[in-house]
Each structure stands twice: as structure tokens, then as C-alpha cells.
């Protein structure tokens, strides 16, 4: 009995190793099959394309570990981007204020989701679905349903596409875009929050046994709100990344991104029943998705089949998760 449970828990570590092994294997296979895959340019564009999904995945990882779900992150990302656009593009405020506005917007929306879930006891699925639609509508209202361009503001585009880490003297072409640096930065900070702070401790606690945390004298509701708010703020960072990459806030974009983010988290071993998950896992999960799609594109696999394969991968990853917790 005892050993069974122990194996169950060490299987958690195995999942991460396995996910990483799958990623490496996938890269090797693609590299063998196409000379165009393992090119610095392409690898960097893979990283760039992972950044937004990855940051969203990190945001949703916090919520999923509490045993909840956040469907609002996709359209909320758009709303935060639009807010940045309003601050910078319409009001001509400094870029850093726009960045702050995006994160604050995300945090406020996250707080609202959190209050709906924690205080009003709405199921997270429903509460965040409501916020998803509200964010989508507000994005269109605030932007006047037109993209807000940042073309006048040179610096904005370089938040994502610029690069202050240039290794091209070491390896030709190894110029890491800032979006990727920010993505990894968010990953490191989130990992620290999740593992080294009280907030992180309660994130796991809530997902593991909420009642136990409550009975331990913790103000469960307040912490839950804080976790949703943190996730919202991280979504704000994703909003900055995508709008600076596109050099515009696209008000109609966003829906569907939450599913990619959730898929990344799940592939990375975050358990949808709560209590388990790591930031690194989610990052690996996001990379698996984007390497797969990029690789299949490079191999000119028809688009229909690319989608089929992504679906298979998600199903298999979740099946693994189920096997892992079965006695």
C-alpha cells in the first residue's frame, strides 16, 4: 500500500522527465527529417511563438493547481493589450505606464473572477466564462473595434521583438528576442512564487484540500482571490507581449488562446483536479505544442493533419495524468 503511493508520487517526477524527453525526441526527429528545422532562425521563431501561450499557460497553472480553471485568460489578454493601446496610443502616456495599465487591468479582472469564485461560490468554469465574454466585449467597445497601432512608438515593438541578449558573436544568429527573455523571466519569478512563498503554498493547499486549509485558520477566500489576481496580472504580461509583437492591439483576437494555454499546462503535468503542477512543466508543455506545430509546418504537413496531431497529443497527455492517479 505504502509503496504504491510512493510510486504514485514519484511518477510525478517521471511525467516531467518524460515530457522533456518527448520534447527532445520531437526536436531530434524534426531535425532529421528537415534540414530547415534545426536552423537558428527557426528555433528562435519557435521560442517567439511559444512566449505568449507559455505566459498564459503559467497564469492558468496557478489557477488550475488550486483546483479551478480560468477560461478568461485568452480574451482578457486582448483586453489588457487594448488597455495598453489606450494608454500609449490614444493618451500618449509613457510606455511603462501602458505596461502597468495592462497588468493592472489583468489583476483587476482576475480579482473579479476570484471574488466570483471565492465569495459568491460560482463554479470557476462559469465565473471565468462570464469574464471571458465581458473581456471580449469590452475590448471591442474600448478600442472602437479597430486595432490600435503602436507604430508611432518605436520602443513598444522592441518589448517583444527587440533583443538585449545578443549571442551572435558566439553562435551566428543567436539573438534572443526580448519576448522570450520575458517569458523565461515570468517563468522563473512564477516558479519562485509557487515554491517559495506563502501564496504558492496556499495555491497547492487549496487544490489539495481546501477544507483543510480553511480549518487551519487560513482566510481561504482572500488567498483564492489573490491567486486569480496574480494570474490576471500575468495575463497582462502576455497582453503586452502579443501587442508589442504585432505592434498593435487586435481587439478581436484572443478567444481560443485559453485552450492552448490549458493544453500546455496539462501536457506539462498540471493536474486538472488540483494540487499538482510545476511552472517548468507548463513551459515544457507549451514548447511541445509549438515545436510540434512548427515542425509539422516545416515538413509541409497539411494543416488539417497538424490539428489532428495536436489533439492526439493533448488526449494522450491527459490520459497519462489519469493513469498516474489511478491506484
Amino acid at each position, binding site marked *: *500500500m*505504502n509503496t504504491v*503511493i*510512493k510510486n*504514485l*508520487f514519484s511518477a510525478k517526477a517521471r511525467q516531467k522527465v518524460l515530457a522533456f524527453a518527448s520534447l527532445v525526441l520531437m526536436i531530434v526527429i524534426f531535425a532529421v527529417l528537415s534540414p530547415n528545422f534545426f536552423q537558428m532562425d527557426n528555433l528562435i521563431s519557435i521560442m517567439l511563438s511559444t512566449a505568449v501561450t507559455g505566459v498564459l499557460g503559467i497564469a492558468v497553472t496557478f489557477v488550475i493547481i488550486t483546483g479551478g480553471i480560468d477560461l478568461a485568460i485568452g480574451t482578457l489578454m486582448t483586453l489588457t493589450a487594448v488597455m495598453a493601446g489606450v494608454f500609449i496610443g490614444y493618451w500618449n502616456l509613457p510606455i511603462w505606464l501602458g505596461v502597468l495599465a495592462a497588468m493592472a487591468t489583468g489583476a483587476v479582472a482576475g480579482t473579479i473572477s476570484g471574488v466570483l469564485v471565492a465569495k459568491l461560490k460560482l463554479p470557476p468554469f462559469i465565473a471565468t466564462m462570464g469574464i471571458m465574454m465581458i473581456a471580449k466585449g469590452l475590448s471591442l467597445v474600448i478600442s472602437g473595434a479597430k486595432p490600435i497601432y503602436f507604430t508611432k512608438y518605436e520602443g513598444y515593438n522592441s518589448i517583444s521583438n527587440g533583443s538585449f541578449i545578443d549571442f551572435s558573436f558566439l553562435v551566428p544568429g543567436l539573438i534572443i528576442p526580448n519576448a522570450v527573455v520575458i517569458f523565461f523571466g515570468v517563468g522563473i519569478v512564477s516558479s*519562485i512564487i509557487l515554491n*517559495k*512563498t*506563502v501564496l504558492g*503554498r*496556499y495555491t*497547492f*493547499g487549496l*487544490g*489539495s*484540500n481546501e*477544507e*483543510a*486549509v*480553511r*480549518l*487551519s*485558520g*487560513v482566510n481561504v477566500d482572500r488567498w483564492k482571490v489573490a491567486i486569480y489576481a496574480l494570474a490576471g496580472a500575468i495575463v497582462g504580461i502576455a497582453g503586452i507581449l502579443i501587442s508589442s509583437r504585432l505592434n498593435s492591439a487586435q481587439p478581436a483576437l484572443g478567444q481560443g488562446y485559453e485552450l492552448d494555454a490549458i493544453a500546455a499546462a496539462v501536457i506539462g503535468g498540471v493536474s486538472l483536479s488540483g*494540487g*499538482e503542477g510545476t511552472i517548468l512543466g507548463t513551459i515544457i508543455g507549451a514548447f511541445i505544442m509549438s515545436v510540434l506545430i512548427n515542425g509539422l509546418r516545416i515538413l509541409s504537413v497539411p494543416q488539417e493533419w497538424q490539428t489532428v496531431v495536436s489533439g492526439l497529443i493533448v488526449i494522450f497527455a491527459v490520459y497519462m495524468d489519469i493513469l498516474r492517479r489511478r491506484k
Partner: protein
Amino acid sequence: MPESLLVRIEDLHKSFPGVHALKGARFDLRPGEVHALMGENGAGKSTLMKVLAGIYTRDSGTVLLDGQPIDIHTPHQAQKLGIGIIHQELNLMNHLTAAQNVFIGREPKGLMGLFLDEKKLNDDTAKLLAMLKVDVDPKTLIGGLTVAKQQMVEIAKALSFESRVLIMDEPTAALNDAEIDELFRIIRELKAKGVGIVYISHKMDELKRISDRVTVMRDGEYVGTLNTQEATMEQVISMMVGRPLQNYVRKDQNMDANPVALEVKGLNRGRALRDINFKLRQGEILGFAGLMGAGRTEVARAVFGADPVDSGEILVKGKKVTVKIPRDAVQAGIGYLSEDRKRYGLALGMDVQANTVMATIGRFLHLGTFLKKKPMADVAEKYINTLSIKTPSQEQLLKFLSGGNQQKVVIAKWLLRDCDILFFDEPTRGIDVGAKFEIYKLIQDLATQGKAIVMISSELPEVLRLSHRIVVMCEGRITGELSAAEATQERIMHLATLRSAAM
């Protein structure tokens, strides 16, 4: 006398919607004593203690701590006052380590108050565990510990608040004898330090061993308090049920002449079941005894097709049957009444009638689609009468029935399915003392009618009382078989702890 009281509760009232759970309850606790609290399910023991621990807020009444009136609204306040509670359902977070569990909500902070001081967390926990002489690494995940060890961690957690009052709600429910001994050692140490312990339990022999006084509650009211050493089981039970017990006589009958209803040969499933062989005769009650995790439930589930087996044969009335899924078993006339009837046995949100016909719904259909209202009502009425199910009507939802009556509905369901072989898994768990005897009688009546019955129970007196024959298991093996005449508690326990040499 009152000056030496740690806790004194007077005239406490608490209502929930539709239930007056506490009606003038009383309780007191001296420092350094173990005060047992007894009563049937629903008597208000847990509610009373949850009020003391700040989980519920009282409607009226007084709670004194050290002679001072206190007013507790949250578990946090109770903890600050030194009142700790260990719940029956352990309240731990499986995905966190022992240390993280102990200090949840009070994590020591390091750098700038932002980050957790994991080292201090582990060191402090190690100290607490060492004080209790418990061998648990603070860094192990709770989910990987045995229930007993988890409980020790809960105790360590309660002590970390410097609790002077410790409430334990059925702490031994899931422990084996050695683990109970260990728990009692810790309780004695706490007693010696002046901690007052409230001990909620049903098990009289334990109370004799560990408690100083016993208070009995019934229907949310205070019944009386006895010194444990002077109290007898009969006395306490009659206080609990409010009437003297009807005496029970065991029939030492030999069933060997009856035809074999079920034979199981060489059943194996991984490490859970190893070479299980037994025979069950018509009209016989075969008891399955053993400790928690000995594999008794697994035998039932395997025979019933709920778990896949590696090998083994099942013969019903001498004919070999293939049981791959529960449906196969049901068709062979085997019924299984799960130990967790709320999860597996019943649809609590549906009414008595619907639950009764659940497994036989095919018989009550017009054109295979529409429900036949009248026959369903007739059949439900019949079983309500024959099993004397106490329900205001057939339309009563199952969740509003008592545990005993819920159990009877499950029995009705399987009887209706024409099952001649019935597996009862912990049939009286969570059922009031009074209702237990009705279930016993029912099981015996069924046997008398010729049904073949396997009864799995962790309560030895229950097994001894009902069984014609007793099979004892340990670690997935059958370690012995006793006839009713030769069975005693001591012999069963000997067999139940007969571990195989090779581990």
C-alpha cells in the same frame, strides 16, 4: 471543583436549517484528563466539538475556558486560545509535505517576509515530531504516509499551537492495534503535560483503556457523565439509545449439509489478493474478518467483477461463471453492498422508490421506454413493509433517511434483483446502535430464507455475533477459517496479524 476546569460548556444550543442539533448540551474538561464523548450518530457530539473549535458558531449558551467566557467564531481564534481539533476525516493536504501541513497558515517567513523559511519549517516540525517520538520525515509528502502516520502529523499540528485542549474525533477508526497502542502512548504523554483531551469514539474497549470519564449525549442533549472505570458497556449503550438493549443469542448452527452456493478458487490479483479459496453455502453467513487493508473488500470486488483479476475461478451453484464486469455477477445472482453506500450504493438525490427499482428498472418499462408507475410503487411498498424501512413516503429522497434506513434500501434493491448471494461490506458502518440490531436481524432473516451471505466487518463483535463461519485475512491471503463455535476475538486477531514471512 469548577476552579480546576479547563473547559466548561453550559446549555449550548445550535440549529441548522431543519435540525435542532444541540439542545442545551453540557460538557466539561479538566486539565490532564481524557474525557470520552459518546452518542449515536446525530447525537450532536461532533457538532458540540465543532462549536468549541470555532468551526460552527453557537446560537446560545456559554463556553468557559479557564473560567473565562469566550466567544469563538473561527478555527483561527480557537487555535490562538489553545483549542485544537483532529477531525474524523483527516484534514490534510496530500500534495504537501508533513512540515508544510503542520504549519499551513502559519508559515515561518524568511527574507523580507516575502519568502518561506523552509529550513525553519522543517526543523520546527522535526522537533515536534521528535517530542511525540514519531518517526516521520518532515519532508515526506503526506499522501505517501499511512493513515496512522498522517494522524500523528495531525496531532503534531495541533500541538504546534500549544493546544491545551485537544479534540479527537474517532481517532482510531482507521488504525490497527499497534498503531492504536502508539496513539495511546502519545495521548498519555499529553495527559502528563496537562493537556485536556476530548475523545470521541464508539469503541468501549478503547475507552476503558484510555479515558477517565465518559459523557453520553442523545438527540443533542446531555444524558449523563460516568467515571469510565465504573461504567459498563450495557450502561453506556442504554444511555445512548435511551432504552435497555435486547439481548442477543448466537445460533451455533452447522451449515455443512446445505448445498454450496458460491465457490471461489485460486483468486489472484497482484499483491492485493493471493490464492483466495472459499466456499459459501445456502443459508450461511460467512464472516470475513481482518484488519483494514487485509483484502476483504478486494475479495468482494473481485468476485463481483468490479476489479480485474489475474487468475481464479468462480462457481455459482457448482457451475463455472465468467465475471468480467459487475453486470456478469449480477446476472449470476451475486449482489454487492458497498462499504461506502453513499458513493457506490445509492443515488442520494433520488427517492426511495427510484433507488429500490434502480437495478431492475428493465422490468418496469412499457415498450422498453416508459416507466410503469404502479408496479414500481407496489414493489417499493412491499419492501418498505417487509424490511420496515422508516420513511414518510416512497417519494422521500434518500439523503433525508438515516444511515440504517439507507442501508435497508440498498438491501431492497438487491433482493429485488433476485440475488441469492449477497456480499455485505461493513453493513453497519455509520449506523446508529439501535438500527444496527435491526440490520443484524435482517441479515439473519435473509440467511434463514436461504440466501448465502458474506459479511465483511471490521467490528469483531459483529462478526462473532452473526457468522456461522469466519474467514480471516491478512495482507491479501486467507490466514485461517474458524467455525462459530471455535471463534473468539483473540483467535481472530491472532490470524489477522499472521503476516507471511516473506515481505
